[in-house]
């Protein structure tokens, strides 16, 4: 942080003289010389207070200036020292920060005052700027975190120019509000409404209507009134589309909701309730149990304060917070966000009451920075979206060029009028533009989302689904994702022996064993030390286990739950009378209970706590069934055992008791009276057990070429232990790095680490996580990242796939994420990746399917243009009919095929791998598509033959001719029949095509086509099928009383929709009632018989197992009926043909099935045959 702000040119050596003069040299390096007078005046007005962090050798003159772009540091060094008051100052650090960044200012001061004393000698010894920067960087690694008490309350009051008793004056608060802005989270600039409106007037659909409008005004058409009417339709449609679209990203609103709306503040010495948006830095606020914290505040009074900061850090346990100026309670150093004397906006007080001084508001608070980061990250288009868009554009351009050349040829060469030639242009363009591709892909992704939801992965944004398929790295949390997020005691050290304990979760059943030998319940009872230890675990405990339908639920702290569960596994039950409780305290690191056990008169103290601190209170040990004095050798042995357990990443607690005669007469039970002269019982080591399915999932990831990185806030040892247990790193050595270590590394070094194998990153902050994700993305990896706290939001948004935890995660993390795991389980990520891959495969299949139909539509035009006298076998209306009939529903059906066997055994798809290569398009068009077109021409010629026009050997010109000028209203019946004959095989061949595309290798006629599980599920669903009752919910409200215009409009449309849907709802209700009546006598037996039939005839089941494909086939055939036999035939220009022509058209179906089955046969034998598609 400091090293990032300090530049080499801002470091000065050999400062000389007395203080004000010596300061001139750093002042001259200030980056805004025009503001020097302001800076000097700021320093002068603060007098000696501005140098308040002096120590005896360090001065930090500091000023806040308005309108600075960012903080600035200028460092002056002097070996002999500069005179200031009675001191000789060797380090002068001039700090200038933007006035509105109050919290940043305090953060820097706190950090500097911690860092500089630690590195003073080394710093002064440096000769060049590079050396200084090196020392600062190293210093930040080891001393960079602030200690608890670097800034006193008086200093805070000075820096914020406030009074810690009277608060700010109203006038000053108003001035600051005007200056710093309100305490709210601002939205980043969004697309203006008028651009959104404009976009809706020029969507693809609107452009088609614009085309119609333009045609109306063209010479020769001359329908201006219709043109104006269609224009009105465009405007109305665009306006309503715009109204529908008014929804956007809600992440910032959710963050804003976490901040209190009202708060109590002291101004002019008076307590008053104000709108939290009016809070300014320097305000004094009151907080009570249950309050949401309205702004970042330093506590100046705190009584038993506990804060739930899960929204900010994801940490589920409430944390104690203390007032500032107490003697140091908590030694050690903290990140800013961990400081125990600060509360942050968005957190909540779960206990106690407090008074604090506001240090940061709005976008300058911690939650504001998260909002800023979250909004700053642009949501990029997914690779598939990019590819599809580029492909659609390229094909559209090609189609446009082709169409235009035909327009010119038709108009200038073939003698058509311009309007007629234009019709051809439209026909060819429509035949070739895969405009349905994007919506179909979207739908396929949506179907994938539904399937993933069943595998506990809720995907929020559709493009993320396909990105999942090319995931190469998963950055996973540990707690709750790889582990079960509970504690379980698995090792005991008692009576100088190591005892293993087994079990599952909080279920109070498990076995105790020593060196592999099981200990019976009787054995436990007769082992005095073990029995006493379990007794201690049971009594010195505030947790409770509740039996639920699903198992056992813990009420209380997980560590205590683990001990309670342990005691119950050892058969400890019963009641006891608790006389006194000394709760756990972070100073003592112990908890004790004075109790009388059932049936006993004597009092016993049971103690549990941190091993070393508890051991220090013991002077005896229970060994071999008797209590004897604790020798030094015993202590060394216990410490060694503790170290051994801790080095395995286990959390260790010591247990002890006391029941000596002195205690029996004692009446004072406070900790200082009872927590001494204890008898040591043993150690209990616990860990968060891994989820059982995780090792298998990790193996699947390795098989699929996906690397897994563990990123956790937990300690390195614990993380390493879990990493080894789940098989991270496979058989290669596992690298472990801490957040502090990677802070020190340059990007190149971190990239080198990220580029090799699997690693663990422990004790990392959200910034580290974001950096790791950013670097992985720079390296070209497709990154999936898990997270649960607000502070994970930037990393989740930055990742290709941000995965929030559904159970533990908070709303902001869920909002920022692309996917939410409903069970927080790593296994669900792997399942989602498999689905993602399947979706990509399916998209390829249905794109090939859609492209296959294009040559059938194009060839008739080419032949008609190239061979004068050849009739046109498919009109523009025919092209449109193919487009609407055969392309959509079967293609969607292909999109819902389940993953094929072996999908997760292939390496991850490369990001740059093209979904649509030129080879793929050419193959789809000219090989597969031409095969289908051949069948169309065969049927076309067959019809010409039976109608008496065509003979084998004669050319196309002998077929029924197109009408003059292509005036289809004057076309002969024979010509219309040939149009039908050409059109119908486009449907029949696509039926075979869609069925064949369902698998790449497996035969459609094989029992293996569906997995046993799939088959079983379908049959079970059929056997248990019952008609569902439908009750129409109709709520018609005639009074539109809404206050605002949009609400009234919405109410009107709701009423209109209700009325319009009424007949359909009634019809559904009638059908449903009919179904209910027929259920017992007809429907259920019929479904059961059908299930039995399909079980016997698996080939039939294969054909009907994808209902959307079957529906698509029926829809195509139904459309054919409408086009051939209803008045629509006069619009689309078809005429019925003899039945044997329809039958003949199915030859294409049979031939294609035979061809594809032969191809699959050879593929199963190891021939790839990629050139055949």
């Amino acid at each position, binding site marked *: 942080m400091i090293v990032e702000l300090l530049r080499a040119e801002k470091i000065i050596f050999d400062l000389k003289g007395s203080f004000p003069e010596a300061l001139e040299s750093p002042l001259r390096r200030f980056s805004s010389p025009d503001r020097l007078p302001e800076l000097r005046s700021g320093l002068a007005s603060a007098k000696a207070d501005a140098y308040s962090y002096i120590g005896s050798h360090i001065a930090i003159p500091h000023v806040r200036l308005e309108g600075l772009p960012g903080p600035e540091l200028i460092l002056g060094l002097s070996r002999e020292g500069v005179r200031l008051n009675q001191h000789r100052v060797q380090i002068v650090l001039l700090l200038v920060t933007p006035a509105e960044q109050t919290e940043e200012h305090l953060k820097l001061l706190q950090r500097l005052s911690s860092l500089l004393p630690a590195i003073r000698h080394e710093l002064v010894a440096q000769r060049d700027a590079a050396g200084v920067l090196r020392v600062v960087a190293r210093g930040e690694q080891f001393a960079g975190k602030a200690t608890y008490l670097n800034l006193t309350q008086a200093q805070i009051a000075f820096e914020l120019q406030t009074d810690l008793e009277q608060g700010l004056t109203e006038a000053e608060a108003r001035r600051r509000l005007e200056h710093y802005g309100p305490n709210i989270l601002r939205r980043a600039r969004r697309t203006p409404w008028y651009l959104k409106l404009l976009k809706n007037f020029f969507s693809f*659909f609107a452009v*088609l*209507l614009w085309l*119609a409008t333009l*045609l*109306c005004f*063209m010479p020769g*058409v001359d329908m201006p*009134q*219709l043109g104006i*009417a*269609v224009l009105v*339709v465009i405007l109305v*449609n665009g306006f*309503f*589309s715009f109204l529908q679209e008014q*929804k956007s990203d809600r992440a910032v609103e959710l963050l804003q909701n976490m901040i209190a709306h009202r708060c109590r503040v002291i101004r002019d010495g008076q307590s008053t309730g104000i709108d939290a948006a009016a809070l300014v830095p320097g305000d004094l606020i009151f907080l009570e149990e249950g309050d949401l914290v309205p702004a970042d505040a330093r506590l100046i009074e705190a009584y038993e304060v506990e804060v739930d900061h899960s929204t900010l850090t994801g940490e589920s346990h409430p944390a104690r917070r203390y007032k500032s100026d107490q003697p140091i309670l908590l030694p050690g150093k903290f990140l800013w966000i961990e400081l125990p004397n600060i509360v942050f906006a968005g957190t909540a007080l779960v206990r106690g009451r407090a008074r604090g001084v506001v240090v940061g508001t709005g976008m300058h608070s911690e939650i504001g920075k998260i909002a800023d980061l979250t909004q700053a990250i642009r949501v990029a288009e997914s690779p598939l979206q990019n590819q599809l868009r580029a492909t659609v554009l390229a094909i559209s351009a090609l189609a446009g060029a082709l169409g235009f050349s035909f327009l010119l040829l038709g108009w200038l060469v073939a003698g058509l009028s311009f309007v007629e030639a234009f019709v051809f242009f*439209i026909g060819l363009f429509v035949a070739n533009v895969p405009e*349905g591709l994007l*919506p*179909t892909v*979207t739908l396929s992704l*949506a*179907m994938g989302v*539904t399937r993933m939801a*069943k595998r506990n992965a809720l995907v*929020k944004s559709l493009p993320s689904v396909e990105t999942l398929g090319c995931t190469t790295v998963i950055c996973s949390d540990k707690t709750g994702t790889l582990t079960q997020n509970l504690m379980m005691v698995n090792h005991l050290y008692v009576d100088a022996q190591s005892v293993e304990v087994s079990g599952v979760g909080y279920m109070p059943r498990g076995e105790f064993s020593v060196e592999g030998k099981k200990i019976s319940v009787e054995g436990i009872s007769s082992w005095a030390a073990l029995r006493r230890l379990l007794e201690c675990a049971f009594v010195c405990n505030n947790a409770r286990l509740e039996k639920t339908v699903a198992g056992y639920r813990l009420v209380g702290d997980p560590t205590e739950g683990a001990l309670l569960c342990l005691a119950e596994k050892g058969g400890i039950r019963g009641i006891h009378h608790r006389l006194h409780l000394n709760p756990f305290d972070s100073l003592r690191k112990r908890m004790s209970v004075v109790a009388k056990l059932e049936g006993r008169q004597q009092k016993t103290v049971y103690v549990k706590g941190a091993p070393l601190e508890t051991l220090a209170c013991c002077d005896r040990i229970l060994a071999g069934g008797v209590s004897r004095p604790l020798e030094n050798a015993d202590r060394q042995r216990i410490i060694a055992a503790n170290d051994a357990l801790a080095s395995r990443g286990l959390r260790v607690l010591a247990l002890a008791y006391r029941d000596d005669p002195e205690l029996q007469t004692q009446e004072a039970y406070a900790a200082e009276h009872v927590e001494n002269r204890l008898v040591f019982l043993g150690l209990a080591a616990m860990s968060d057990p891994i989820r059982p399915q995780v090792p298998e999932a990790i193996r*699947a990831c390795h098989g699929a070429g996906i690397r897994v990185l563990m990123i956790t806030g937990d300690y390195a040892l614990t993380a390493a232990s879990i990493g080894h247990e789940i098989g991270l790193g496979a058989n290669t050595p596992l690298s472990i790095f801490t957040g502090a270590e990677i802070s020190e590394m340059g990007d190149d070094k971190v990239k080198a680490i990220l580029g090799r194998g699997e690693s663990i990153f422990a004790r990392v902050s959200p910034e580290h996580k974001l950096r790791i994700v950013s670097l992985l993305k720079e390296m070209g990896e497709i990154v999936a990242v898990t997270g649960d706290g607000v502070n994970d939001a930037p990393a989740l948004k930055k990742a290709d796939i941000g995965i929030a935890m*559904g159970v533990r995660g*908070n*709303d902001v993390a*869920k*909002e920022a994420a692309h996917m939410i795991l409903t069970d927080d389980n790593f296994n669900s990520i792997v399942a989602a990746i498999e689905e993602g891959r399947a979706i990509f495969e399916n998209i390829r299949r249905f794109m090939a399917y859609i492209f296959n139909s294009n040559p059938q539509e194009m060839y008739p035009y080419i032949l008609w243009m190239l061979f004068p006298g050849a009739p046109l076998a498919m009109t*523009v*209306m025919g092209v*449109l009919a193919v487009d*609407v009939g055969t392309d*959509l*529903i079967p293609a*969607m059906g292909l999109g*819902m095929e*389940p993953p094929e*066997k*072996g*999908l*997760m055994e292939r390496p991850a798809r490369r990001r740059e791998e093209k979904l649509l290569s030129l080879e793929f398009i050419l193959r789809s068009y000219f090989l597969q598509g031409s095969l289908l077109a051949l069948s169309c021409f065969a049927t076309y010629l067959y019809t010409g033959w039976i109608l008496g026009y065509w003979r084998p050997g004669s050319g196309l010109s002998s077929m029924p001719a197109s009408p003059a*000028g292509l*005036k*289809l*209203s004057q076309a002969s019946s024979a010509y219309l029949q040939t149009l039908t004959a050409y059109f119908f095989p486009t449907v029949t061949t696509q039926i075979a095509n869609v069925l064949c595309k369902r698998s790449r290798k497996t035969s459609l006629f094989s029992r293996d086509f569906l*997995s046993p*599980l*799939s088959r079983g*599920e*379908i049959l079970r669903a059929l056997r248990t099928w019952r008609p569902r009752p439908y009750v129409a919910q109709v709520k018609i409200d005639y009074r539109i009383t809404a206050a605002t215009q949009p609400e009234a409009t919405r109410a009107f449309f709701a009423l209109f929709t209700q009325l319009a849907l009424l007949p359909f709802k009634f019809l559904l209700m009638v059908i449903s009632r009919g179904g209910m009546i027929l259920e017992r006598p007809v429907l259920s037996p019929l479904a059961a018989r059908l299930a039995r039939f399909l079980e016997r005839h698996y080939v039939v089941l294969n054909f009907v*197992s*994808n*209902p*959307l494909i079957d529906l698509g086939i029926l829809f195509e055939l139904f459309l054919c009926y409408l086009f051939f036999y209803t008045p629509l035939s006069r*619009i689309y220009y078809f005429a019925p043909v003899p039945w044997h022509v329809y039958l003949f058209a199915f030859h294409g179906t049979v031939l294609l099935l035979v061809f594809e089955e032969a191809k699959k046969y050879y593929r199963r034998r190891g021939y790839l045959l990629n050139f055949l598609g």
Partner: protein
Amino acid sequence: MWRVARHNHLPARLVLAAILLKLSKHTALLLSLLILGKATGRYDLGEPALLGVAIAAAFLHLGARALNQRASAEDRPSHEPR
């Protein structure tokens, strides 16, 4: 790795929306062709009928969008506090 195919919970709303969207574009294109057809004497449709086709296309389009938005709104995870 085999997995169970589940077709019983098809996102019917999305399927319907896609079909309506396709039909709306088809109808809009049909309108252009009908206008050209009328101009060249191929069809004998009145202007009110052509306007009806335009309105039908707009309704299909709005219906498809409404269905799409409703489906995505239902898919959106809930924001209830924990």
